[in-house]
């Protein structure tokens, strides 16, 4: 594993600080999504970048359809990376699915994470009796069948929707990374993500968390941030970004950097 894993998932360490900061990208993107955030943190952190196994930049052969059926293998990957890098404490910034992964990882190894920063995080995307996750099961299925039918059309429609704010470069960038994913993997991972439900386990988190949420996010309703705040076990703060969309690191990198910096310093 070890070295191979680092290679397979394109693990990179940049920056010159003494503290570790993990930047974990979300679904449909890869580590390049952080490039506008990076410069502000490289002087003070050693930043660990890696690609989720489902990212387009990872050789699709590494994606084992029998293994990555839940989020746990992703957590394994993350923990393995940190282990083989010899990291014993780090701050973690995770977007979307990586936020979920971060939560699970911190449950398993609470001492490893000094702080979790969760961008656009949602413990559960589907609605439930007394929970509003933003999606109905049926809607999701519809989306999945749209993805199956014509991935390209779906990406073209979904990218601007997810980006939310009208930032053409962001849409372009997101579309690019989304396209890079092999459609079947993308669909499979989406299913995995929508299938996940972290609500019951949030209380196991002991690490202080910061939930960063944009004012309007197609994937994550505002109530979710509040849900996270009240259910996460650690000391948790919520930051609402005054922008729209699911990808603040693409649309408003400067603003997000400020918030990140603030959150990390707390």
């Amino acid at each position, binding site marked *: 594993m070890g070295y191979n894993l680092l290679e397979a998932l394109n693990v990179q360490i940049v920056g010159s600080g003494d503290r570790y900061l993990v930047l974990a990208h979300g679904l449909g993107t890869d580590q390049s999504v952080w490039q506008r955030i990076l410069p502000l943190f490289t002087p003070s952190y050693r930043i660990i970048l890696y690609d989720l196994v489902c990212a387009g930049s990872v050789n699709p052969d590494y994606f084992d359809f029998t293994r990555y059926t839940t989020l746990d293998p992703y957590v394994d990957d993350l923990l393995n990376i940190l282990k083989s890098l010899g990291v014993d404490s780090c701050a973690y910034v995770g977007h979307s699915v990586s936020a979920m992964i971060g939560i699970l990882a911190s449950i398993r190894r609470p001492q490893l994470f000094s702080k979790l920063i969760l961008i656009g995080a949602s413990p559960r995307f589907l609605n439930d009796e007394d929970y509003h996750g933003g999606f109905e099961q049926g809607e999701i299925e519809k989306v999945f069948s749209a993805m199956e039918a014509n991935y390209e059309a779906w990406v073209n429609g979904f990218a601007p929707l997810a980006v939310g704010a009208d930032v053409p470069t962001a849409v372009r960038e997101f579309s690019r990374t989304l396209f890079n994913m092999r459609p079947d993997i993308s669909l499979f991972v989406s299913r995995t993500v929508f299938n996940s439900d972290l*609500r019951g386990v949030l209380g196991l988190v002991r690490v202080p968390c910061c939930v960063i949420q944009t004012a309007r996010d197609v994937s994550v309703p505002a109530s979710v941030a509040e849900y996270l705040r009240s259910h996460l076990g650690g000391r948790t703060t919520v930051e609402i970004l005054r*922008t729209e969309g699911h990808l603040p690191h693409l649309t408003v990198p400067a603003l997000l950097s400020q918030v990140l910096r603030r959150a990390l310093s707390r």
Partner: protein
Amino acid sequence: MPTSVTAARQFLTEETASALDEAVAVARRRSHAQTTSLHAVSALLSLPSSTLREACTRARSSAYPSRLQFRALELSVGVSLDRLPSSKSDEDPPISNSLMAAIKRSQASQRRHPESYHLQQLHSSNNSNAIATGCSQAQAILKVELKYLILSILDDPIVSRVFGEAGFRSCDIKLALVRPPVTQVSSRFSRAHCPPIFLCNLTDSVSGRVGYNLLFPGQEDGVDENCKRISEVMAKNSGKSPLLVGVCAIEALRAFTESLTKGKSGILDGDLAGLIVISIEKEINEIVNEGNEEKMGLKLKEVEATLEKCNGSGGGGVVLHFGDLKGLIFDGALGDFVSPLVLRLASLMEVYRRRLWLMGAVDSVEIYRKFCDKFPNVEKDWDLQLLPITSSKSSFDGAYPKSSLMRSFVPFGGLFPTPSDLKSPLSGWNQSIPRCNLCNEKYEQEVDALKKAGSAVSVADQYSENLPSWLRMAAVDTGKGEDVAKTKAGESMLSAKVFGLQKKWNDICQRVHCTPTFTKSDINPSMSQVPIVKGPQFSMDQKQTSNGDLSINESLFPNQSPGRQIHMQTNFLPKSTPSISCTSEGRNMNFHSVLHVDVPSVTQQTDKDVPWFHHPQQSLSSCSGRTPSSFVPPVTTDLKLGTIYASTTQESKTTKSLNHREHLQRFSGSVSTEFDANSEVTSYQFAQSSSCSVPSSGEQFDLGDYKSIKKALAEKVGWQDEAVNSVSQAVSQVRHKYRSFRGINCKGDNWLTFLGPDRVGKKRIASALADVLFGSQECLVSLDLSSQGKLGHPNSIFECKELNRHDEMSRGKTVSDLIAEELRKKPHSVVFLENVDKADYGVQHSLDLAIRTGKFPDSHGREISINNMVLITTSSSITKGNVNVICGNKDVKFPERRILGAKNWQMQILVGSASDDAGKSNYMGVRVTTVKEASTFTSANKRKTRNAVESSELEKTDTGEREHKVPRSCLDLNFPVEEADEEDMGLGLSKSESSESSENWWEELFSQVYKKIHFKPFDFDEVADKIVKEISSQCQRTVGTEVALEIDEEVMVQMLAAAWLSDKKEAIEDWVAEVLGRSLAEAGQKYNLTPQSVLKLVAYKGDVVKEQAPGIRLPAKINLN
């Protein structure tokens, strides 16, 4: 990192390698930087016995004739290849990452499916297009078969798109590749519902399994992952009892126990093999609900017996599964029954450790916590380990009603519809119109921007109807903006705009890059079909409508053949020139009609700012014969009908336009005849005529405007000769460039950078430029990027000048937003951004984008076009070439930084006696006292003065050159170095960081601007000398020669700053004569002045000037002590 060709070849069989070589050759021929999948496709299609082509033949739709469809495919591959950037290199273009990934993928899939590989091998050997047999898995390196390579290349989205454009589905092709030709395509892969097929599932589908669920092996294996995790917990050395936590935990638990009882192999092996699952869930239920403990007792006995047996046999064990933990938490009396059970289980655990596992599930940690509250030791007693469970199998299936996410696609329906909607115009056009790569790219960028602009109505409001005069001829891009403002969406308009852009870039391409004109002969028929009479009529009609709607055209041209499409496009006058000239050759006959139609449009342009050009274009039957109907190559004719927005006519200058109309009609006669004679010449003359049509603003366009600009600037800033010279040169050059219509594709043309000192001079030139270019000094947006986030400088003399006026309104906004807001307010203006080198990250980013795209984005992502603006960025820093200018002035008495710290204090005159130490100035009795040699008279104030000077120094460093590259070289020696450092520290991380990282940034930005202009430092010392002279002569005149006058240095600084700032050249002299002279005279009267008296002109600290002298920022009155 691209892979070298030789490295890639070693993974390939001979045949595949030769195909790859072909691909590389294709890439090399087109001088592309890398060999991509597209090149591979192109090569594969052209191979003599092409497997891919054969597969396409079988996969293609029967709707089109096959020849046509292949032609379409070749075209779309060709066009896609054209879009790739080219580069000059003699070596073989290396293999791109995507293609390399495809090779790796195919290798892997070959490895995964050796048996199907054999099978396919058999099948295909029956085939006439037999694939070369290379039994590769025997070899050390698995060599990739051509077929597998093709299969994985087809996975590439770009490739599937290309195929899609030609009407192929890559999944069909894949099926055709995999299946032997005889097999008919299975009906479940119907055309309408074609599932994507990838290598991973391809073989599965071949082996005949049902449809599509094969994508989800997880589904078949149940909660494989969860089970694995559970067993991991149980198997660990400690052998803990897993308590599954999570909403899906109960399902996961059920799935696990089910698979255990079913004895599914593989879930638990090793020492965990052969476990027996006993559920006490039902019994617990009974206890809790009915208080019936009997059954539970029996059950537990049974468990015990089993465990004993296990102990005896030395293997196996029991998993005691208590179901949902919620069942055990029960408030009230019945809850009492639970605690004995908990204890009982605990004791069982105690006895049969390693043989007994408890297992349960709980919804959420909260419930578990509650349980723990009741039974604090349970975690230890039961040996529990919490296991978060985040997903379960059951959520995979379920009923699927309608989706709201899908519905929410609808707003994009117009813009991001099914690919065919948007693509067909795009792809269709792309095929027929030759553009070179560069232009194509630019064109695509703009189309992109256009698409986006359509969705952002917010962008629209900033465009006003009239174009800026200085860019009137050039700002083609504003056309888009106008369109957005005018047309609230409407796909027809979108496509029209797309067409317009395309047209534009074709023109540019043809003109600039000399791409050969497309199908010349085709144009003739279309021209002759245009009804000449209707031209003027059309434009009249257009005039009446407030916004040109496409439907109008169509109604006006009812007799058009169905193949003909009419597109409208906003456009600008000069376009007629190039477009005519490029089609002129050999088609003189038709220019009669062109001109008849065109002339009225030209006439009308005098009173309207935005002409509409009309492009009738036709798809000729001869073309449609060659290509499939969906990709009709339209032929562009350059026939134009210009009309106007009625909405812009509010500023019509009727009389003028009448004159011009007459003039132009006369002109047109001559032009048309000349067209007959010599199209080359006429096109040139036509250009002349079009510039004649806007003579009302013509003087500003005067070719010799360099001189006028220079004059205007020099009037304002007399001391910066060189800078004024280069600014006016740059501006007139850019203007000329725009006029001659060559420069529009160069972003950054309207950017200038002012480097070096003399902040006021820079600002002055900017405002003078605003005056010259836009007619008013008000058309200046001025922001100082360095002052953000700092405290204002209290009482600074510059404050009143509003040099950093955004300070007040900046609360809670990012700088980018502030700039954007200003830009929106003044769409036609000179934008003057000071100290860009100190801009924060957000602004840096925005500026970067702005210079590259011509649009300034704010932090919300809205974009403002800056094409109508002149952007001036300044930096007090010095680039390498300019260092000596500063260094030469190292020992100036009044460096600019000091002047920038000048305060707007009230002044006063003090009277004292001549101090012994300083003595009287030998020279004319006036001198400037510096802080160091301040006379004893002011010793009481000395401390204070010093502090003030120091603090002003600090401020200066803020506004001035604190972070520039050679700060120490011109550091004021009065200014302690330590404090400077401290100041640096005080500003903290972000500042020092940004100065580091931004250095590269702004140098890069500055490298993109049209011109860099270096400013000389303002010579304050000279002015100071002049002032001193002036004052002393004034002093002699009013109070006599024997009285000495000491001028506090701070006052001197103040006066210098005022002189610097004042618009009038003689302002300071006037002030000295008026105000100072009067005060001195008053002082002379008031005090009995003796030769020993020393008058001191000092600043009255703490008292800001209330009344200003006219024309200068100095007090109108000087206090007398």
